[in-house]
């Protein structure tokens, strides 16, 4: 168990920061309270540094230290952790001012004193970091139980964050909906995990792979895999588990919505890659192919096609920007599933779907934050009877903001174009390998669906581009003003700048994600071989009755 610590340093750093932040946020001193975000950022920076330096199996030379990491995607861990820390760092400034705004204003005006019971700041930031910790743990999971706990650690804080992100009724409703449906999703993949355990007798992913390779996939195992996948589809908001997305994104504050579009989605995709990796891309019509087993392939295929299409077609209909972005988030999950279907190919960047998914997660994380940042940076002045300014949401509010709010406007323009996949921007370099890997995997019909969907998506992304840039300000826009949080605009600028800058560095990123996307099922980490030490599950097995159902 101890050797695991060697690659858990980023998680440990984030967790330690979480504990500090939880205390800092409750301080009576305003300065200390305000430092919570800063400390969170420092913690994430440290985690990023640790992810780059201390995680074995470092990306650089493409060499993997055999002693660490889960087995079949050993090089994915450091890349995934880096991308999580980077996007989390961009997300963090966007969260500024989401909670406690009225409360702090009340204190500042001298109408009240600080009351820890009424303050949400500590919870809010520490929950964010908890979620990030969970996400980091998902990346390094090698066991179903670990995976389950990590996934839930990722999700549970987000339920609360949605509910407290705004004082409005809608946020609470969204939080409750998200929680109940999330529980349903969790129940589903837990059921799938249980079936997998039932079919193989182990919770270790490597061992499951061995068993599947040695004795084939039993019907029970296949059912477990499928149900697990459906449960994980909730995390990535894929059809048919997508229903919650629009309501929740719309109800939550933009910063939290941006987080929801990245953190659970990344967790879901990493988990899907791990689960699908236990069977491997070694099936095909003649038994020696390079695709997933037929039932899994068909499931993913149908879900990917439906997700893209339903996401995009519903996005076209929206007049609420946040709902539009929510459906776009659904559609992007569909795109990335194409990469999962394509599989590792010959491990070159243009043919590796896994590398494409990893690259796209980073690209999507960066450009998606920008769109929400543009929304968060502008707010409508409170009307009579309202005590709180509200962020803009209706697409008409975006008209002409390039002139009235240039930073937010241009952020929206650049990020929308990138989400569309316009060539010089990051989104294009993200989408391209999805196409090429699927083509080389022979999934031509799916590529056609993907292409058609990209065209449909242009419809609403171009609206997001044209309204701020080309249109005159809407009459209602007079009532808008810059949100009093420079951090939100910084998040936007960083994100829009990242979209441009990372596109310049795309070659380097491609190399890194190509290395990260290596699928090495034959490779046995020392840890897996020598794990004679009783794991938690083995210990449970020793207790009569606990695992009695297993034969």
């Amino acid at each position, binding site marked *: 168990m101890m050797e695991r610590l060697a690659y858990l340093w980023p998680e440990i750093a984030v967790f330690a920061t979480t504990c500090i932040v939880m205390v800092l946020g409750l301080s009576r001193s305003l300065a200390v309270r305000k430092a919570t975000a800063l400390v969170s950022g420092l913690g994430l920076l440290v985690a990023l540094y640790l992810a780059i330096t201390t995680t074995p199996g470092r990306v650089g030379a493409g060499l993997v230290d055999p002693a660490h990491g889960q087995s079949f995607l050993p090089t994915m861990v450091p890349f995934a952790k880096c991308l999580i820390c980077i996007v989390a760092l961009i997300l963090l400034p966007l969260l500024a001012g989401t909670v406690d705004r009225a409360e702090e204003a009340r204190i500042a005006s001298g109408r009240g004193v600080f009351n820890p019971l009424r303050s949400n700041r500590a919870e809010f930031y520490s929950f964010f970091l908890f979620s990030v910790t969970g996400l980091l743990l998902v990346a390094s999971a090698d066991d179903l139980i670990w995976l389950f706990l990590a996934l839930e650690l990722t999700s549970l804080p987000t339920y609360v964050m949605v509910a407290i992100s705004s004082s409005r009724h809608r946020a609470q409703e969204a939080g*409750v909906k998200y929680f*109940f449906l999330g529980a*349903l999703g969790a129940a589903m993949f837990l059921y799938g995990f249980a079936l997998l355990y039932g079919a193989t007798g182990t919770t270790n992913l490597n061992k499951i792979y061995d068993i599947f390779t040695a004795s084939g996939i039993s019907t029970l195992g296949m059912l477990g895999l*499928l149900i697990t996948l459906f449960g994980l589809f909730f995390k990535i908001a894929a059809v048919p588990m997508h*229903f919650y997305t629009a309501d929740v994104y719309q109800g939550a504050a933009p910063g939290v919505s941006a987080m929801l579009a990245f953190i659970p989605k990344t967790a879901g995709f990493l988990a899907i890659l791990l689960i699908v990796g236990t069977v491997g891309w070694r099936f095909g019509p003649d038994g020696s192919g390079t695709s997933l087993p*037929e039932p899994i392939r*068909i499931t993913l295929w*149908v879900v990917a096609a439906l997700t893209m299409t339903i996401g*995009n077609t519903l996005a*076209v209909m929206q007049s609420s920007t946040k709902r539009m972005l929510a459906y776009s988030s659904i559609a992007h999950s569909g795109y990335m599933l194409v990469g999962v279907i394509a599989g590792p190919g010959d491990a070159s960047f243009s043919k590796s779907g896994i590398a494409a998914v990893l690259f796209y997660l980073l690209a999507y994380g960066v450009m998606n934050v920008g769109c929400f940042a543009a929304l968060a940076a502008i707010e409508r002045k409170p009307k009579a009877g309202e005590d709180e300014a509200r962020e803009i949401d209706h697409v008409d509010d975006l008209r002409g903001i390039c002139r009235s709010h240039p930073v937010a406007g241009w952020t929206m323009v650049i990020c929308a174009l990138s989400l569309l996949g316009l060539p010089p921007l990051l989104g294009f370099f993200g989408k391209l390998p999805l196409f090429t890997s699927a083509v080389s995997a022979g999934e031509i019909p799916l590529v056609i669906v993907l292409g058609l969907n990209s065209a449909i998506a242009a419809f609403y992304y171009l609206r997001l581009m044209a309204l701020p840039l080309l249109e005159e300000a809407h009459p209602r826009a007079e009532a808008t003003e810059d949100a009093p949080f420079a951090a939100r605009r910084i998040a936007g600028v960083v994100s829009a700048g990242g979209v441009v800058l990372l596109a310049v560095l795309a070659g380097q990123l491609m190399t890194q994600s190509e290395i990260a996307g290596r699928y090495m099922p034959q490779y046995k980490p020392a840890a897996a071989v020598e794990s004679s030490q009783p794991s938690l599950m083995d210990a449970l097995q020793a207790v009569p009755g606990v695992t009695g159902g297993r034969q």
Partner: protein
Amino acid sequence: MLTSDSLLTLGAATAAKAPIIAGDPLALLIPAMPILGVIICTLCGIFGVRNKLPAFATVLCLAVSFAVTAKLFMGHDGGVSIATGFEWMSLAWGEGQGQRLVADFSLYLDSLTILWMLFVTGLATLIALYASEYMSHDVGLGYCRFFAAFNLFVFSMACLVMGDNMLLLFLGWEGVGLCSYLLIGYFYKKPSAVAAAKKAFIMNRIGDVGLILGVMLTFVHFGSIEYREIFAACQPYIDLAKAGKFNEIPAIVQLIPILLAVGAFGKSAQLPLYVWLPDAMEGPTPVSALIHAATMVTAGVYLVARTYPLFLLSEYALPIVAWTGALTALVAATIGMAQFDIKRIMAYSTVSQLGYMFAGLGVLTSTGAAFHVVTHAFFKALLFLSCGAIMHGFAGQLDLRKLSGVGFMKGWGVVGLGMFVGCMNLAGFPFTAGYFSKDMILAEAFVTPGMAPIGWILLLTAGMTAYYTFRVFFRVVVGPMHYEPGDELHHAEDDSHGHGHGHHDAPAADAAHASDAAHGHSHTHDDHAHHEHGHGAHFHPHAPGWAINTVLATLSVLSIAAAGLYFVKSPYAGGHAHGGAVPGMVERSSAAFETPFSHHGAGGAGGESHDTIKEGGHEGADGKAPTHAAAGAPSFVPTAIAKAHGAEAHAGSFFGYDPHKAMYYVSGVVGFVGIFIAFILHYAGRRTAATARADALLPAVGPLAGWAQNKWYVDEFYDFLIRKPLWFFSNVFYIFDKLVIDGLVRLVGGIPRFIGAMVRPTQSGELHGYAAGMAAGVAVLLFLVFILTMR
């Protein structure tokens, strides 16, 4: 030991055998400095600099480029080297031949490149200095915009000329086109300038289609677009061409030069694509001088010269080039004779002189063409800048009927002198630079078999050139002093960023000037004694300042000095190439091609040894011309030329004389006659600016003069032939588009909305509905998978 092959040396041969010699990396500074200039000017624009900083930064940057070019020239040994910049494009889709497209940002340094860059950077520096004063009315954002585009132009030109592959050439080609568009349309609030800019851009696109197809075919056939490899790859074909076996050369290869020539005709304003260049005079005069006279329009000549080995592969390419050039020269000269706007006359003369250069290329004297490019660059820039100074000083007045005796007015001496030097050169007055360079082309036209008609056309054109050049000189520069200001004064209410030329330092008087012009007052110099008008203000010509005068003087000296190039020895080993330094440089480049005939002239062969065109050990220095003249066999003539006259390998003659010698006298006389006619018709006995004796002749030529003045109605003809049908079809297609295509698009576009509308009810917002939907969805999908995978 000489083989017959060595008679004909192409850059290709040298390039094929020589390993890549790394060029001086310093050369990269030549394109880099103008880019720095672009950045500086842009920053100036952003920070709202309102002084002449952009101009002087530009001058400095370009001067550095020029200095680097000069240094390269000094240290150049005549060989080919490649200065590698960075990897620009490298695409591979297989291992085989032609499955790898490499285009690096690398510079191909040979004597042709250096020759071109010498005058491009040199003139650009001088003209930037001139523009610093000329554009001073626009100090501010417009000034920054002007100089940013100016720098970008020089950068593009450097890419065009120095690139070691056709893609970089294409980048530069489009870059100069863009800059030309931006600068012609500099006064973007003036509709005629905008129209001219669009016209230039669109006409150039037509040529560009040819160029890009040529480049593509080159890649398709030769598998590379790097000159080095193309020249090596076309060597076998050259051998075939040498043997006259054109039918063994694939048609696709023979098509390449013709397509490239179309591109060159567009950029260099040749028939039938020349109509944009005269209109391009709407741009500021420094632009006309640099881009539309000296440098950009010679890009076509450069393209042909650079890819000369390819042009030798086609039976028809060079004759096409020659005939197009000659006809353009003639047509443009006829139009030039009838115009009244002096800048337009210069524009038509540019078209005409470019025709000379193409004719030169076509009659196998790339050296003559290149020499003419260089001399023309100097004297035409000088002429344009002098015209610009006049325009600047006389509030936009360019009509030669409204200006007279400018050269003798106070403060205008340098301008008058500049006009004189420029006109002498353009007219080909004996012993000027223009005389020598034009001579080479004329002589070679008579030498090359089958090309004598071209020689006659060019000779006639030379006379006309002398006439219309000195028509301007005798009307505008000398004669009784008289002027009317133009209408481009400062209008207080006109904010079209100060496109006025008048007294900059007396804004209060400007409004009065404007009303002056509106009343159409004319001021003869005689009543220059300040008799007061009712308005109490008076127009004074605005004599050029130090910057303009310095540049004009420098260019005058350079234009005269260019003649010396004919006499100095070739800078490279071997010494005494025929025609001096410029041919010496050209002969070491890919443009090197001399007909064997040039040695056959009666007495000329002995002395004029083309030693520099041999590769390897320069045997020519000792092995004199007879060595290869006697070989006799090398009858490489593009067969079209040879067949046409059946004159196998024998020099043409000019009434039995050696054309090289005879032309010295003939062209001198022709030029003199032209000048004399101009003197009689436009100077002798002229009392006013408006009329001259020539007017009396107008009835004699009948409607011809009117037609020529209306540019032979070519624009109207194009309008009728191309634009009208296009309008018609565009209207038809518009209706089709509206009804059919739009309908289909709307239908297709409606599908996503339809699907969305179908799915939308599922988003009810109700928790239990969602939960049920999820459960049902999972069940349905699992069932589907079960059905699909059941065997």
